[in-house]
């Protein structure tokens, strides 16, 4: 499993209130949520993001509320992967559960700049920053996680399992 795209870079403690502000939580429609993704810290994100692009954050990415709307908004805006130095635990759980790949790599996160082209190979456990010509090793996804991500989320994975 591999993804590749352009980096949108943010700092430490990107919280769920800026990923998707609470004023938009009166809906759970992924498209509507995506239309307001990141708008409180980056008004240009929604208009510039293309399918396959990556978000790179610093420490404690996704801290704050337990709203699953946050990874849903990121996923629905076309982002293929989030790389960060570290993730808040509820966000991490939620991202995996909905099938949004996320990877913890302090080195890759610190080195990446906005606009860099980065690819991630989840099975091999490798992040390549093509712009900088650098490669970083990360632990490959365990099998259960690959299954969940490939199926598009925990529930779809469970159902696929049952139907086999």
């Amino acid at each position, binding site marked *: 499993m591999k993804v590749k795209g352009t980096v949108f870079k943010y700092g430490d*403690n990107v*919280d769920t*209130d*800026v990923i998707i*502000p*609470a*004023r938009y*939580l*009166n*809906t*759970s429609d992924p498209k509507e949520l995506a239309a307001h993704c990141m708008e*409180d*810290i980056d008004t240009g994100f929604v208009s510039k993001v293309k399918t396959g692009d990556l978000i790179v954050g610093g*420490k*404690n990415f996704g*801290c*704050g*509320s*337990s*709203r*699953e*709307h946050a990874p*849903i908004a990121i996923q629905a805006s076309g982002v293929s992967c989030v790389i960060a130095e*570290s993730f*808040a*635990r*509820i966000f991490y*759980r*939620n991202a995996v*559960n*909905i099938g949004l790949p996320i990877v913890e790599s302090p080195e890759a996160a610190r080195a990446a700049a906005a606009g860099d082209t980065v690819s991630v190979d989840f099975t091999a456990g490798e992040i390549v920053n093509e712009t900088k010509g650098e490669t970083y090793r990360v632990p490959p996804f365990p099998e259960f996680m690959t299954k969940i991500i490939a199926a598009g*989320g*925990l*529930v*779809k994975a*469970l*159902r696929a399992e049952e139907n086999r």
Partner: protein
Amino acid sequence: MGMTMTQKILAAHAGLETVVPGQLIEADLDIVLGNDVTTPVAINVFEEIGKQNVFDKSKVVIVPDHFSPNKDIQSATQCRRCRTFAAEKGIENYFELGEMGIEHALLPEKGLVTAGDLVIGADSHTCTYGALGAFSTGVGSTDMAAAMAGGKCWFKVPSAMLFRLHGKLNTYVSGKDLILHIIGKIGVDGALYKSMEFGGDGVASLTMDDRFTIANMAIEAGAKNGIFPVDEKTLEYIGAHSKKPYRVFEADADAVYDEVFDIDLSTIEQTVAFPHLPENTRTVEGLPEIKIDQVVIGSCTNGRIQDLRQAAEILKGRRVKKGVRLIVFPATQAIYLQAINEGLIQTFVEAGAAVSTPTCGPCLGGHMGILAAGERAVATTNRNFVGRMGHPESEVYLASPYVAAASAVLGRIAGTKEVLK
């Protein structure tokens, strides 16, 4: 190797003798909670899972508190989704407007959570129930759905940090000041993935309301849970609210902690967290003049009776500074009624405050007190992220009810000393 209090509760619910940090376990749940923002998403997932019934009708709790009373048509639709689902599935603990409250104040009050329980909630402040000696933590909607279906959830066993409290807090200093102080010290990711366990002789001096406030904000340090040992005060609270059987777990004497902090409670001062992170703490003493537009007293952090009493003590016979808006929202209907009976609501109204029905409303910038660009608020809530209470260019300063009330009177951020002198 000895186990922490959290590890013991997890082991017991997973049917294991012992667990070690990092171990993945599947555990039985005593309560599964959701609100009007997270439950509709969980219902979609529950339907996708395709199960007819929830695992136990008495163990699922749904509280429409975020956008209720319904803020607009979309929120009305979300609340209806919760209501219909609860009715269809026969969920016993669905709390309609008029009998509800903010979920994390409501569940302990209704006796739904007790010592030794294992609770997950699709709301990050589910960690509040650690005050009762329970393990409770926030999850997302997919986890909530899977839990409603099967009554189980997987966990990675956390390691822990121990906060050993000594002595007693000074007058006009509260649990809020203590937890803000701790977050200021260890940072918003200082306890990432870990348990924050409280202990020491100082615990006895903390009221239950203080403990709820402290456990509530464990998530603001990134923790998986916060937990207090069970003592006489806990048992008294449980006895007054719950008929459920409880179980007291104690950390082993040789439990292993990643770090131990010793805190002398008498050294804690009135503390404020500046925008835009709960870790940006300063003591109120010697602050420059910071003019404010709004003060919010309430939420699952500080909307309990002790909080209202403390705010009223400062506001009694005084008035909110002209040009400042004070909003008070008691956390539950029972607290609201008690505040009426004690004359606190009269004090608030006479001081010039707007008093609201229980709701999350302003706390998450939902409704009932949104800030415009450039406006500043002092709030007894738990988060001051960018845009948390409204416009992305507004600011929220977190404080205790004492400090919030004093600030409302003076129209700028101030400690109680300045009002009481």
